[in-house]
């Protein structure tokens, strides 16, 4: 059975035709009846056909047809997505898939981002890199989310894959600028180096100078999360010799003046720009303030704008020349008042993705609603993320958005005050919603106008938004809200619950009523053993369940672990190791093909 990627042509006795295109494969089939080795032909044909399947859902389906299809699909899958790095071992990956060029891997559960899990829990990339180094020397792309990556891992990666092209690290940690330097230096074919929302330690290494000195293949360089000064001269040089560069996201150590210089170099090609600090250093304005708007006028192709890490608002109007083209705008690090904001948003007619701080207030949201008719995704983050902060946005802003942005698909909204009426309105106005995440920051806050629980509002969302796949709830919620979720939330895959519900019934409604539920994360809610047991018919079909500060007993968790051998049930302790602890502090359980992991730290007990 030919393993070679290049060998797409039919076996020698059919080689009356040149190497196959799909049409020709069909011809191959018709003449195969005289074949002496039909299996080989079928495999070759299948390979030719299956190589065109991209979607992993389609591939998963195809692999279930029969053993032959399973095998051939395994040979032709070039991109593998693993949603939980502990669901299988690296060895299993390399046994099943032989020609992987791209790996997408996710590690820690999302609640780890909010300090709900002690550090060093795991999700180490090391075993994956070392296994793939032997099995896939042709590997081109690695995309990691919430993994622990060390400098050594990056060094091994850089050494092991000569054709390596894309490194994307989202919400990762454990490495520093040394590791980045090694990648920059050794991966000569590097096209993409994207560090997104990752913790990168400052090793005082000039990694920008480590890129090869001749023309690079770089298409995307994002380092806005790197909290370390960079060598600007080297960066200028790098941009100058990267003709394919389309996306550049600078960190806050790049000043406005430096940004201007970079834009004069490479602006016309850029499609995505992260503007760095957007503030000036201590330079004297001898010749008057520089013309930053001119630099932005040169950005004819920019459709995605972000940065503004230390915004000096008086310079914000410089971006006006690009506003009309923008489809994506991220102001979520900029404390912008409504008055500064409105003139800018007024020009952004094509905007589809908009992230901002709540400093723009309800007034700013009204301006968005008036202008951004194409809006698909809105995220409003709190400038002051405390429970008792002011809260400049409320149901008024949400109502306005629902009326103005009818195509809205995804919402993340932090606020202090909300009403059921606004949610009900949104449920009717925005039928395309697939992601609805509302965080009322004060715990257990009811509808601030009626004083009622937020049940009806969330109920309307799950009932009327028929495409809803992701939901995060907050505010005062009784079991009724969960009853609605169980009844109407038939497509929900991800559910986040915090400080909500009254009893086990709430969780039962969800576990019994939501057949597509994959990811369930719950904290500080009164759900106990009865609720946990009620979901046992579901857990093998889910990616994970997280329950922290609930009312689960160790005995029940042990029962579940015993009853479900392919489920890894982790009990994660906290700092005070109280033996008399009645309830389990944190339960994190997930299905696994290869049993419990061997790298669990001391504070994790696997039942």
């Amino acid at each position, binding site marked *: 059975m030919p393993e070679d990627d290049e060998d797409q042509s039919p076996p020698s006795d059919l080689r009356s035709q040149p190497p196959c295109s799909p049409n020709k494969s069909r011809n191959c089939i018709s003449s195969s009846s005289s074949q002496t080795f039909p299996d080989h032909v079928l495999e070759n044909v299948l390979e030719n056909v299956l190589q065109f399947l991209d979607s992993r859902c389609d591939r998963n389906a195809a692999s279930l047809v029969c053993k032959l299809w399973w095998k051939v699909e395994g040979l032709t899958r070039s991109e593998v997505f693993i949603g939980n790095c502990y669901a299988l071992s690296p060895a299993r990956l390399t046994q099943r898939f032989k020609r992987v060029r791209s790996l997408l891997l996710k590690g820690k559960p999302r609640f780890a*981002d909010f*300090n*709900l899990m*002690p550090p060093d829990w795991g999700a180490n990339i090391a075993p994956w890199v070392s296994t793939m180094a032997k099995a896939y020397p042709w590997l081109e792309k690695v995309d990691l989310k919430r993994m622990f990556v060390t400098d050594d891992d990056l060094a091994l990666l850089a*050494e092991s894959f000569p054709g390596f092209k894309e490194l994307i690290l989202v919400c990762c940690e454990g490495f520093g600028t040394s590791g980045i330097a090694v990648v920059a230096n*050794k991966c000569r074919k590097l096209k993409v180096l994207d560090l997104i929302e990752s913790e990168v330690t400052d090793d005082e290494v000039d990694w920008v100078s480590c890129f090869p000195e001749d023309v690079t293949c770089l298409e995307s360089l994002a380092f806005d999360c790197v909290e370390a000064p960079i*060598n600007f001269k080297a960066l200028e040089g790098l941009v100058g010799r990267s003709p394919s560069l389309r996306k550049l996201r600078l960190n806050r150590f790049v000043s406005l003046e430096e940004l201007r210089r970079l834009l004069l170099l490479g602006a016309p090609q850029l499609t995505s720009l992260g503007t760095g600090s957007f503030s000036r250093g201590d330079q004297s304005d001898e010749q008057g303030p520089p013309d930053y708007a001119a630099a932005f006028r040169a950005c004819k192709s920019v459709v995605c704008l972000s940065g503004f890490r230390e915004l000096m608002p008086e310079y914000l109007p410089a971006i006006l020349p690009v506003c009309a083209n923008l489809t994506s705008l991220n102001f979520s690090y900029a404390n912008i008042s409504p008055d500064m904001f409105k003139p800018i948003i007024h020009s952004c007619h094509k905007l589809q993705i908009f992230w901002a701080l709540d400093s723009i207030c309800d007034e700013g949201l009204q301006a968005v609603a008036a202008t951004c008719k194409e809006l698909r995704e809105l995220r409003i983050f709190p400038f002051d993320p*405390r429970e008792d902060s002011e809260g400049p946005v409320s149901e008024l802003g949400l109502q306005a958005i629902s009326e103005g942005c009818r195509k809205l698909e995804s919402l993340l909204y932090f606020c202090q005050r909300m009403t059921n009426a606004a949610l009900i309105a949104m449920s009717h106005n925005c039928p395309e919603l697939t992601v609805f995440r509302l965080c009322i920051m004060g715990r257990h806050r009811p509808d601030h106008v009626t004083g009622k629980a937020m049940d009806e509002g969330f109920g309307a969302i799950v009932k009327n938004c028929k495409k809803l796949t992701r939901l995060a709830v907050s505010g005062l919620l009784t079991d009724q809200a969960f009853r609605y979720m169980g009844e109407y939330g038939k497509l929900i895959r991800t559910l986040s619950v915090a400080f909500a519900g009254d009893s086990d019934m709430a969780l039962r409604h969800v576990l019994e009523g939501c057949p597509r539920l994959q990811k369930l994360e719950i904290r500080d809610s009164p759900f106990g053993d*009865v609720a946990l047991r009620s979901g046992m018919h579901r857990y093998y079909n889910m990616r994970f369940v997280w329950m922290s500060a609930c*009312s689960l007993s160790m005995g029940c968790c042990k029962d579940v672990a015993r009853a479900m051998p392919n489920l890894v049930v982790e009990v994660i302790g906290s700092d005070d190791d109280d033996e008399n602890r009645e309830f389990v502090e944190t339960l994190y359980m997930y299905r696994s093909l290869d049993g419990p992991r061997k790298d669990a730290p001391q504070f994790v007990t696997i039942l």
Partner: protein
Amino acid sequence: MEGCPRSRETCPKLLDLIPQERKWYHDEEKNNSDQEKKLELRLAPPGGDEEDLSAMKKKKNLETRNNIKKEAEDKPIFNLSGNHFSPSNKTTYAPPHISHKRTAPGPVVGWPPVRSFRKNLASSSSSKLGNDQINKSGEGEKQVEPKREGMFVKINMDSVPIGRKVDLNAYSTYEQLSLAVDKLFRGLLAAQRDTSGGEGEEQPIIGLLNGKGEFTLTYEDNEGDKMLVGDVPWQMFVSSVKRLRVIKSSEISSALKFGCSKQRENEELKWLSGTSVCVEGSHSF
């Protein structure tokens, strides 16, 4: 469903366990009977007792609303629900967060759910430099160590622009450290030499401790002095070392002579401007 038989067993126990002395916000008796009704309902198939549930819900909403108006906003009604099915008895034990809430509404770990790098925006205009690691923890949150439990010190090598880090806690002798240094830099050194027309073969880095090899391992201690590695007992070394440097053995005497901080500044400036650190011998430290 697998869960059911067990729940039948446990429920009567729970009923017994709900003590009279538990505190509720409002009328205790009413609540206990609600309590029992609720438990009865849970034994029935899901979705079965619509009427009772809705009546209860109305009652609860009314009670809830009244309570909200009476109590300060932050005192959670959750207390009510928190006690429902916890089998704990007189000790009223609950996970730390819950008891914390009952007494005083203080900040809770990881709430609101905003990632740490989004948290110091309110004070960011003043903090330009690396204060972020301190700010990142936020109020009332667990202090997350940015690194693991290990003693990481930086280590640089002459003629290699890329520095590394070593965890000194991973070793207990100078020999082990020396081997680790070889492992760390062998490849990088070969790569450097390759570009200057060398063979490209990796040579092991040996003789770091005895002055006999091409390179020698030195360190800077907590007083800023440059020292040869290997002279003092290991533990003493670990407790005083701040930084390591692998220098060319030919430059030992000059390197150790010039140990002032000005040299360090110059060195760092050179790094930032992109030139290799291994320049004239007298400035190599």
